């Protein structure tokens, strides 16, 4: 079916503003991805999966300007011993980064990887698999045009996390990063991500987890108020493997975080969670698609949003249980705490089940601060502001507790507390 002219025009206009990196092993994958982009067309407001989030500023040829925001705070994950890799407006900054040496892990830069590389078999593969049944054209665009990124191969248990730090220094930067992570059988790795990255950020991370592998991901998206981001994680899990991802988002005029998970081996576990705090001109969209295609797998989606002063939150979460994926245990919850009448939360939970011996639950709620609880706290001498903060932190707790490492949980809670207390002045 031919694309509508308007979509075709918008897609070509965007492609015209980009240069595809030339040569090397990724070239074939880039060209394939380019074909997908042209076939699908970039997202349009009338697309079903973009009904609640306007894609135009993510698609337009130039990135809308985004003012730099110096929060003056200590670096995120500053207290965590990690191997730091720094990107400035989407370009790897070697001088600011640690040496890419970590036992049981190989780390290469996408931009200068040699002609023969393990990532050749993976780059763009999981993204391409994730294009059905729902199209994700911005991710295909990413595969085609990503100019930088890291290729991480874990062959054993990594002694410390790899921390990807995204700095934003130009008000008009338009960054496209693509990471590939390969976790071997029995290997274990944690990847941290933090920072605003760019005025407009398109990021894809493909994570292939072999049997018995474990991958943890904790991300804090930067607080620059005007930044825009469209990110996607594509992961495939083997037998008895584990994938756990958590994202904290505070501020940002537009964020779309997609997570596409495919459970292909028996007894695998996938958790994806998010906590977001929005104030004013803030739009945050979590779009998740989990496919159960093996026996006895567990998936959890836990998303919590605190919204105030007209902030808007979106959740689209789907669990697809394929025929034969018996004993699936799927859980999905999305909740918003609306601190005023102007803020809005839109949720679209979906279940599609073709197996008859499964347990899938889903729930979605929107509510205000519990007045009874607030009075109880105040009656014990806690001022209204801190009492409201305490209840807000409590609201987010279920999502934050999805992070397995307690010190990372503390780190996240500290950021939440700081964000809330700044708003009390």
């Amino acid at each position, binding site marked *: 079916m031919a694309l509508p002219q308007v979509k075709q025009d918008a897609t070509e206009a965007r492609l015209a503003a980009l240069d595809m990196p030339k040569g090397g092993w990724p070239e074939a994958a880039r060209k394939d991805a380019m074909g997908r982009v042209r076939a699908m067309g970039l997202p349009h407001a009338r697309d079903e999966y973009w009904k609640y989030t306007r894609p135009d500023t993510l698609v337009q040829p130039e990135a809308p300007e985004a003012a730099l925001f110096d929060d003056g705070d200590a670096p995120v994950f500053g207290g965590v011993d990690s191997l730091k890799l720094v990107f400035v407006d989407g370009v790897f900054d070697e001088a600011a980064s640690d040496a890419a040496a970590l036992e049981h892990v190989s780390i290469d830069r996408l931009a200068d990887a040699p002609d023969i590389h393990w990532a050749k078999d993976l780059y763009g593969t999981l993204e391409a698999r994730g294009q059905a049944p729902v199209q994700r054209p911005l991710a295909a665009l990413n595969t085609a045009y990503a100019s930088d990124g890291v290729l991480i191969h874990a062959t054993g248990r990594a002694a410390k996390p790899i921390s990807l730090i995204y700095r934003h220094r130009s008000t008009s930067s338009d960054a496209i990063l693509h990471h590939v992570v390969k976790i071997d059988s029995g290997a274990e790795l944690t990847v941290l991500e933090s920072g605003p990255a760019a005025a407009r950020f398109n990021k894809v991370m493909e994570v292939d987890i072999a049997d018995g592998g474990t991958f943890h991901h904790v991300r804090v998206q930067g607080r620059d108020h005007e930044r825009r981001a469209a990110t996607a994680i594509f992961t495939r899990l083997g037998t008895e493997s584990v994938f756990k991802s958590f994202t904290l988002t505070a501020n940002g005029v537009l964020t779309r975080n997609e997570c596409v998970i495919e459970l292909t081996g028996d007894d695998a576990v996938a958790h994806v969670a998010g906590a977001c705090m929005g104030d004013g001109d803030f739009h945050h969209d979590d779009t998740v698609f989990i496919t159960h295609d093996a026996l006895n797998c567990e998936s959890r989606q836990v998303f919590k949003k605190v919204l105030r002063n007209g902030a808007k939150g979106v959740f689209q979460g789907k669990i697809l249980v394929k025929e034969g994926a018996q004993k699936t245990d799927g859980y999905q919850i999305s909740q918003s705490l609306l601190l005023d009448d102007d803020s809005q939360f839109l949720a679209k939970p979906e279940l599609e089940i073709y197996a008859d011996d499964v347990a899938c639950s889903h729930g979605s709620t929107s509510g205000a601060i519990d007045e009874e609880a607030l009075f109880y706290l*105040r*009656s014990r*001498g806690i*001022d209204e502001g801190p009492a409201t903060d305490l*209840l807000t932190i409590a609201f987010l707790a279920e999502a934050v507790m999805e992070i397995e490492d307690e010190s990372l949980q503390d780190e996240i809670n500290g950021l939440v507390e700081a964000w809330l207390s700044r708003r009390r002045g």
Partner: protein
Amino acid sequence: MGRPCGPGNEKGKQMLEIKNLHVELEEEDKKILKGVDLTVEAGKVHAIMGPNGSGKSTLSYVLSGRDGYEVTEGSATLEGNDILDMEPEERAAAGLFLAFQYPVEIPGVGNMTFLRTAVNAQRKARGQEEMSATEFLKEIRARAKDLKIDAEMLKRPVNVGFSGGEKKRNEILQMAMLEPKLCILDETDSGLDVDAMKLVADGVNALRDEGRGFLVITHYQRLLNHIKPDVVHIMSDGRIVKTGGPELALEVENNGYADILAEVA
């Protein structure tokens, strides 16, 4: 605002003074309290008894500053300070404590975090130094032990999954940690078996001292066997209709409210 530091409360001094208090429900335009007069002195335990709907719980809520009530007439002071104009947290810092009839469950907020925040918020409001983590831990462990509250319960979210008895003991633990000047106990005996009630009563009795006043609201005389009141008031239709000694509670226990109400009608 805030209570003075250090000792200086003498026995017999007026702690709580309520004069001609009239209260309506904000939303329903319904009169609940119709002229309550009541004085609780430091060092004394006053009990308020009365049938359902007489206004006992409303009195406790109005004193602690809950939303939804409008004071149309009268006054209430704590150590001479008007409390009706204060926010709930200011009343707490001034020394008022309400042990809730139905303690609220707060998922996600740890009991310890909650109590430490509360203790330090009150100290701060009174211009005192905050309690250090070690000091707080030592204090709460000792208090919790007296009330047979184990470490596990302290770690759990506030009142979540607590039994009726555990919730009430948790109220008393808070009271012990916050060391208020005026303790209001709203039907603290409801939902408790005899053993649990005795434990709660022991906790309350341990806090009785000359600088502290108590207002114990209850339906039944039973609790008053364990927390012996100095004065008993009978409340009916929004007023204190009779005041007497502990024997008044026994009279209610034996004959019900009907006789007393008929007598004062």
